[in-house]
């Protein structure tokens, strides 16, 4: 397995507030890793730091064999690290197809194209000339995922892609993950839904208050371990 991503002691601050206190994480090519944790645990901040939206200059962030700490967002994107941002953030003045096309602006070659995105999400074909925001929540999420994939990333980061969606829609969307991996793209999902995360991931990290509180394969973790790592419950609290 080749190492795709490695952070050592990654920290992040918002002004005086420290959001991350030294995150160590590794992701190998072909893995699907999930980050779980409650609100404010630092999950989204971690993704923003990886993608260059939070400053990381001088820290240790290795991606695909090179340091990406402190690089501007578009350069990291060009190296093959794409993100599906929380809340989807589609461009309302662009059509579905234009929203997808702008994802390809970096010009990386690979298996993903308009055609393969429409194969992955056939629902979008009939909507391709609609404004990106005139869709159902699930379809918008498909556009957001497609937009990230259009850059042919080596690793795609999905931030809370189940947020605000009906359970059936969530299932549909997560069905795409194995296909994404089959095309050679590794996946990192951030999830509040622990069940969903354990079902899709090969490895799980649990964040609590800006630190990794637990990590392992889904099979090796027990419910009570996860509850403790998730909520910070101690044995005495039972």
């Amino acid at each position, binding site marked *: 397995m080749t190492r795709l991503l490695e952070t050592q002691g990654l920290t992040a601050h918002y002004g005086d507030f420290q959001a991350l206190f030294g995150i160590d994480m590794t992701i190998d090519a072909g893995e699907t890793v999930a980050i779980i944790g409650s609100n404010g645990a630092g999950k989204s901040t971690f993704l923003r730091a990886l993608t260059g939206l939070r400053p990381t200059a001088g820290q240790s962030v290795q991606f695909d064999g090179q340091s990406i700490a402190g690089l501007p967002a578009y350069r990291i994107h060009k190296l093959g690290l*794409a993100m599906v941002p929380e809340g989807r953030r589609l461009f309302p003045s*662009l059509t579905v197809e234009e929203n997808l096309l702008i994802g390809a602006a970096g010009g990386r070659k690979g298996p993903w194209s308009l055609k393969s995105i429409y194969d992955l999400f056939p629902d979008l074909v009939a909507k391709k000339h609609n404004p990106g925001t005139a869709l159902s929540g699930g379809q918008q999420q498909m556009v957001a995922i497609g937009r990230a994939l259009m850059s042919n990333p080596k690793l795609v980061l999905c931030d809370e892609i189940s947020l605000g969606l009906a359970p059936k829609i969530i299932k549909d969307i997560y069905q795409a993950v194995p296909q994404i991996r089959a095309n050679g793209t590794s996946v990192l999902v951030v999830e509040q839904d622990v069940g969903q995360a354990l079902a899709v991931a090969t490895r799980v990290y649990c964040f609590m208050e800006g630190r990794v509180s637990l990590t392992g394969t889904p099979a090796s973790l027990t419910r009570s371990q996860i509850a403790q790592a998730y909520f910070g419950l101690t044995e005495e609290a039972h």
Partner: protein
Amino acid sequence: MQAKTIFPIAAFATGFVALSVAPFWADRADLRLLMEGLSYLALAQMWNLLAGYTGLVSVGQQAFVGLGGYLFFALAMFAGLPVIPGLIGAAVLTALIALPTGWIAFRLNGAYFAIGTWVIAEVFRLFAAQIGSLGGGSGISLPVTVARSLGEGREAREMTMYYIAFVIGAVSVGAVWALLRSRWGLALTAIRDSEIAAETVGVDTRRVKFLIYILTAGFTGLTGAFIFLQKLRITPDAAFSVNDWTAFVIFIVVIGGVGTIEGPIIGTILFFALRQVAADWGTWYLMLMGAIAIAVMLVDKRGLWGALRSRLGLSAFVTERRL
């Protein structure tokens, strides 16, 4: 096509055709007004491209109007360039000077950028006042020979002048439209919608913004060069006036509709209609203008065109991109 598109397109097309033959129906005073209107249309399109699409709110565009004017005078008087090459030369030089000024201004964000651009314009104004060969603080007139070279007789000269203004106005609209329909338009529209999201999907927002800054500086310089060719006289205070070249332009874009191509066109028409009616009211006119701008922002900050478009679904300049 639907009526919602046909009606606005017909209206803009009629306006375009009427303007293209204006010297045959308008008298001298009207023609002068139209030239001024076309100049303001170009300034408004450029400010809108900069602020409406890339979010760079500059209150220092008078820097480039003034630079264009002064550079044109210098090229005509000292280098002996004919009018058209002089105008183009002034535009290119303005864009070149915008490279270092942009490099400075781009260290600043948001409100600091706005103030920074204003300060840069003031520096240019003070600098212009120091150049003795261009008249220093009291300014200088364009030699008669330059104006004469535009044509035999007053009528021919005014015809030439009008068509220069017409080309500047029309190209400002056409260029923005073409830009938005290109690959660049995708990035620009994305940045307008959400800069953070644009960064997330790999748009090099800084580079796009810088290039738009340079492009608008050049075209604003061209417009400035023409404005002072028409005035035949330039002074530092007139050339670098924040009121004339930025405040009025912002007013036009805000009431017309920021972030649209049609907005600056409608805003220019409204601005000049208002001025024709109310300019004699003195200070009351300026207060009325301020009140209108505030009212537009309170009622619908998308401006007149933005409000019409969202309520009626109108659109004239369709910018769907074909890649």
